[in-house]
């Protein structure tokens, strides 16, 4: 829990980056198109660049920092490394959160469902195929199936 005082015209993205120094949440287009600023609010992916800070008073917000537990990477993060699901990494925090929200809701998503979930996350490096592979791999891992 953190308390921050801000102007009402600050976005959640502004507060996370400038006040709380959580720089994993990226600034991209800032108009809701690229998904680099994705965070999860109550488990659902949203664009923090389109949310005024006062709107999220009292809500729980998950950034990629919250995926690791006791310095251990989340299975998604491990799969992303194993599958080379990134190049520059700019889209990665947002993509990981989108993927987490999907797997929490649908532990075994189809490729179509993965594509739909990722429709709001642009990867300029074009790592989509590897991203999809990594999500499928995580899904199998989490269900206790080995490759």
């Amino acid at each position, binding site marked *: 829990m953190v308390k921050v005082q801000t102007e*009402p*015209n*600050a*976005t959640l993205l*502004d507060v996370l980056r400038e006040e709380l120094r959580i720089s994993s949440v990226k*600034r991209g*287009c*800032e*108009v*809701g*198109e690229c*998904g680099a600023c*994705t965070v999860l609010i109550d488990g*659902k*992916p*949203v*664009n923090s*660049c*389109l*949310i*005024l800070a*006062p*709107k999220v008073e009292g809500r729980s917000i998950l950034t990629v920092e919250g995926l690791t537990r006791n310095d251990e990477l989340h299975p998604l993060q491990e799969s992303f490394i194993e599958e080379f699901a990134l190049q520059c990494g700019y889209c990665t925090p947002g993509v990981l959160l*989108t993927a987490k929200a999907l797997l929490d809701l649908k532990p075994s998503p189809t490729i179509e469902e993965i594509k*739909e*979930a990722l*429709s*709001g*996350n642009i990867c300029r490096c074009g790592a989509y195929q590897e991203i999809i592979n990594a999500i499928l791999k995580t899904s199998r891992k989490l269900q206790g199936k080995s490759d």
Partner: protein
Amino acid sequence: MRADYVNLVNTHTVPVRFMYHSPETLEEALRLMREYGGEARVMAGGTDLIVDMKLRRKEPKHIVSLNKIRGIEYIVEEDGGVRIGANTKLRSIEKNSIVRERFEALYEAVRSIASVQVRNMGTLVGNICNASPAADSAPPLLVYDAVVKARSIDGERKIKIRDFFKGPGKTCLKDDEIVTEVFIPYPPGDSASTFFKISRVSMDLAKVNIAILVKLSSNVVEDFRIALGAVAPTPLRIPKAEEYLRHKPLNEENLNIVEKIVSEEIKPITDVRSTEWYRREVSKILVRDALNSTIKKLVRT
């Protein structure tokens, strides 16, 4: 670069100073709207409003957020249709089984909007109140003859969706009114509906969108409704095409005439997304494709 080409507007900040109000009841919100009238803006999901403020297209002095108001987030069946509350997110609408089964065109339209993230925030009511000529929910709501319920301190008013849009960004709402819900009557039994949209990429607004509803009795058209968006200052029903096709057999000759009527009735412009010529041509094809797809649905059931 010439000075007048320099874009002084960027999207990094919200360059507008405003008071943020987050009332917990609708009554309180209505009181605030009465008090601040033209200087206030309602904010539902904010997916249109915040972009507009970043680009300085809107500079409200007061924002009245619907976020904390309980009891306006619902999809309920009632009185021969469904009622959808002002705070109901697009994502919940697309996940709703009644919408999916009975309002196919609305389901297809909502699913086509932006991304999961935007649909987790944005609302159906915000989509129509923003009054973009390209709003994807507008053509389906037009063919279903939806009714918009607006409230002010003085009471409630019901507005037919056909009378709701007044121009790009303009509705018939008064400064102190808040839309509380949209009522969508069930389409006639044994009818089917379809939504189609042509856009540059899936994230972009439509170049042209269309919704149609068809009811057949053997091969004769019993009911036909058609609405298009992004082809005029407001989303449009095309009554002339509807009247022409009703009680006629669905054949090539009649189809050609309907396509022609539609392309003559619309008033498209050339803008960043498309040209007038292209919009007229592609509208014809959309009419045909939407009809074909709807008839397939009818045959299946």
